[in-house]
């Protein structure tokens, strides 16, 4: 019997390869937000993508005329909930990807999606259908970074916003996305008109007046939102833009460039390293302290001192962006929802800007606790300089406050360098220990004192990793200069996954990071366009996201 089965499987491998939907790869076609976070549902009437293998013909087929039908290129898609079955409307099919419109009469809630290609059925894959969940298209196709927004200049001049083609306050913008909700018919040319779905647009956290929110006339399953850049919107090259529908569901957060007069934002703001084309070098030293008291019997402080250095070669792009270097303007926040565990090895798309190489074959650090010479290898990227674990481990921490001399011997490609960094005492996160349960629907206030007031930059970040679904949502905020507190708005926490009852299935943590001005140095390294050294403190605490 076993041999027969094995034979059948072998034959099957050659003759009958059914379509395969990759696990959890039914996503909003614009945002790619994972299914397991609130913003990852597929809205009725929206365009969604299915990724997999053998899903359709090797040569892509795309719809070209109305009315659309339930089959394209011998590909059809069923959406099933119990005894209810509807057909999605494919608009683009090829072997590895399908784009389709979720019918406006699709059942709400969890459904099972199957693809049929040349009469072979795929595996079922679960998705969640919602009345509205918006995704914003992005220029880099990652679901974050510069969004597809057009600056309205005139009917005939509407360039796509980018750091070099910035908008200005008061300017009308057209944002492209999908997920505003159901329409009367998904298969005919859309009727122009705002939909009933309540829509809010936030630019740098500031609510923007909306002029239109509905289907775009050209394309079934695609929406446009026309809004005005608020007069008090923050300025910057990567101002966060988010859409909230029905008062609760938040889109992916993309960016747009805003300057006071619409000129290139790089005329007003420096071009960050690792975003601008060129070779960039970085030396970083940091102390990370994380108080862990969720799921533990007693609070445990895990402390580590780390150091890294590397060079990166970055290519030019019309939509330059680095998911973390292209940070939001001071006083604002952004967030990303992605597959993987960003706290254990997975990286955001575009995080590795260009090619990462060794900056120096050997690094020396001399400070209050003596001299350390460490290799500049990329693996491990971070060197552990010392650690402590409450009273369980001997305290070997190295990066105590003080003055540090750093130097590198260079490589065949890059010259040697040296610099002095002064590391003052870090700030104190004053309400850290009062923070335990974080209600994602309410503002989160973070307070601190000390450090280098007026001469430090402070960042607040939060991570929600849901291990069973292999999903991370992270938010990051930049505190205004001189601030001693920051309020994280619910908007950027909306897509954090709720912490699970079993704390080992979630990683929920808030970080406050400070970067003292005196811990920064410009490195002049032959062969490197620009290079910097920085010293930072990162203070974290595990929490429960509710």
């Amino acid at each position, binding site marked *: 019997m076993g041999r027969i089965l094995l034979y059948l499987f072998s034959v099957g491998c050659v003759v009958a390869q059914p379509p395969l939907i990759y696990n959890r790869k039914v996503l909003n076609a614009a945002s790619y937000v994972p299914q397991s976070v609130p913003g990852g549902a597929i809205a009725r009437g929206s365009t969604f993508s299915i990724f997999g293998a053998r899903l359709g013909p090797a040569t892509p087929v795309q719809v070209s005329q109305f009315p659309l039908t339930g089959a394209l290129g011998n590909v059809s898609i069923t959406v099933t909930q119990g005894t209810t079955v509807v057909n999605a409307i494919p608009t683009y099919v090829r072997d590895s990807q399908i784009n389709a419109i979720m019918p406006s009469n699709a059942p709400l809630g969890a459904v099972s999606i199957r693809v049929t290609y040349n009469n072979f059925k795929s*595996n079922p894959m679960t998705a969640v259908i919602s009345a509205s969940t918006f995704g914003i298209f992005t220029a880099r196709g990652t679901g974050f970074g510069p969004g597809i927004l057009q600056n309205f200049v005139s009917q005939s001049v509407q360039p796509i916003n980018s750091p070099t083609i910035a908008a200005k306050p008061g300017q009308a913008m057209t944002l492209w996305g999908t997920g505003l909700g159901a329409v009367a018919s998904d298969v005919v040319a859309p009727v122009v008109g705002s939909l009933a779905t309540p829509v809010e647009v936030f630019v740098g956290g500031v609510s923007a007046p909306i002029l239109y929110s509905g289907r775009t006339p050209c394309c079934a399953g695609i929406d446009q939102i026309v809004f005005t850049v608020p007069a008090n919107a923050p300025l910057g090259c990567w101002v966060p833009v988010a859409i909230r529908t029905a008062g609760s569901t938040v889109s992916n957060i993309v960016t747009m460039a805003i300057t006071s007069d619409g000129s290139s934002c790089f005329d007003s703001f420096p071009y960050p390293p690792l975003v601008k084309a060129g070779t960039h070098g970085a030396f970083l030293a940091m102390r990370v302290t994380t108080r862990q008291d969720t799921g533990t019997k007693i609070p445990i402080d895990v402390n580590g001192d780390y150091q890294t250095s590397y060079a990166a070669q970055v290519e030019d792009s019309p939509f330059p962006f680095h998911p973390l270097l292209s940070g939001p303007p001071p006083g604002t926040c952004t967030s990303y929802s992605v597959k993987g565990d960003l706290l254990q090895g997975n990286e955001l798309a575009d995080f590795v800007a260009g090619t990462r190489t060794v900056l120096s074959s050997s690094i020396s650090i001399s400070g209050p606790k003596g001299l350390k010479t460490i290799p500049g290898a990329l693996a491990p990227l971070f060197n552990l300089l010392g650690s402590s674990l409450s009273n369980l481990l001997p305290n070997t921490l190295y990066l105590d406050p003080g003055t540090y001399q750093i130097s590198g011997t260079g490589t065949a490609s890059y010259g040697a360098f040296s610099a002095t960094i002064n590391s003052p005492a870090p700030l104190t996160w004053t309400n850290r220990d009062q923070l335990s349960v974080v209600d994602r629907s309410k503002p989160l206030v973070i307070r601190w004192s000390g450090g280098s007031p007026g001469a430090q930059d402070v960042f607040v970040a939060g991570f929600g990793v849901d291990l*069973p679904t*292999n999903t991370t949502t992270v938010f990051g905020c930049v505190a205004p200069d001189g601030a001693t507190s920051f309020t994280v708005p619910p908007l950027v926490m909306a897509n954090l996954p709720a912490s699970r009852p079993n704390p080992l299935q979630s990683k929920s943590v808030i970080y406050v990071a400070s970067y003292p001005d005196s811990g920064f140095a410009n490195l002049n390294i032959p062969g490197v366009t620009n290079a910097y050294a920085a010293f930072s403190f990162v203070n974290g605490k595990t929490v429960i996201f509710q």
Partner: protein
Amino acid sequence: MKQLFKVFYAIGILGLAILLVGAGPFDCDCHNPDLTRSWVTCIDGHPTLTDGTETIDYKDGKFNPNDYACPKNPLESPEWVHGSQPAPFPLSSQTSANASPKGRAAAGGTVAYVPRILLDLPFGPSPFPKIGLSTCDATSPDILQVNHVNSLVTRLTTCPFAVKKTIRVASRPLQIAITPDGQMALVTSFDNAINFIDLNTNTVVFTLSVFFNPHGIAITSDGKTAYVASFDNINSLIATIDIASRTVTKTVQTNAYPQSVFLSPDDSQLYITFPFGNAMFIMDTMTGIVGNTFAITAPRGVAFNSRGSKAFITSATGGSSGSVLQFDTETFQVERTYSVGAGPTDIAVMYDEVTVVVVNNEGGSTSTINLKTGQVTTLALGAPAAGLAILR
């Protein structure tokens, strides 16, 4: 200085970024204390913490082997030993006050246990500094082991190692699963029964009569649903059991002799092994549709990493060695094969997410796979081995 703000900010947040995205600090052997003593198996009739040299010190009489029917012949109770679910609900947390240890810690007991406090941490410094292991920690979880021949389930404390209770169940029990809250254990008995054990009282509170020779069992993370495989060539099915009402709510026909079932961490998929049929199926739990089938030689055990992004499947390929297949659960492709000892059965991913432990039944050995280096270390145990439970 402020003119440098943006640049400074950029490099600053770079540091935060790299740190937080885990390119370094958390891409780690986060819990790197001696892992080799962290599992249990039956060797020559004795429960064993295995590090290749050390066994539980039963010989001095402190641990009375007569109390415990750890089978000498593992084929009498093959791979179906299950430890408690991971924290936060270690079984011992609810029963340790009543524990009456009969024995003492393992020989050299001061080094036999990973400190509980470390195991609870979501994050640790990386690489984890070398740490001396702690003394026996009474919060270590209990283990439940099925004895097929004697129709018993034995509850063991692991710190110290001792029998807490033997529980009689319906004849020819095979596999056991525990609800995440640690309140209930479900045991399959080949002779058409599923036993519900109240773990507060260590008694069978209900026996569900069925018709399909139940074998493998898995419980969802919400503790509401159990899936049971019928080791039968006629009534070959996967049964869905509502744990609260203790009823079979659904059955799905499969190929002959489904043996074991394993839920993906998000409970969305059920991996079903057919060692006789040389196949593994994946069933969508929402629809009950078997959508993926794979030809794998004698698959026996499946373990997932915590994220469910990888599955590790033991394959008893015959001969002097076996295999562990590393399976990408997103693309459903085997991406790597490790050669281990003969007849691999039980498998577990350790809490460091880097180490995979395999018990090789026919080979009488354990294999340890380092997923970072790909290195496989196989230790001969001197006798056939069966059962694996992580003492987390």
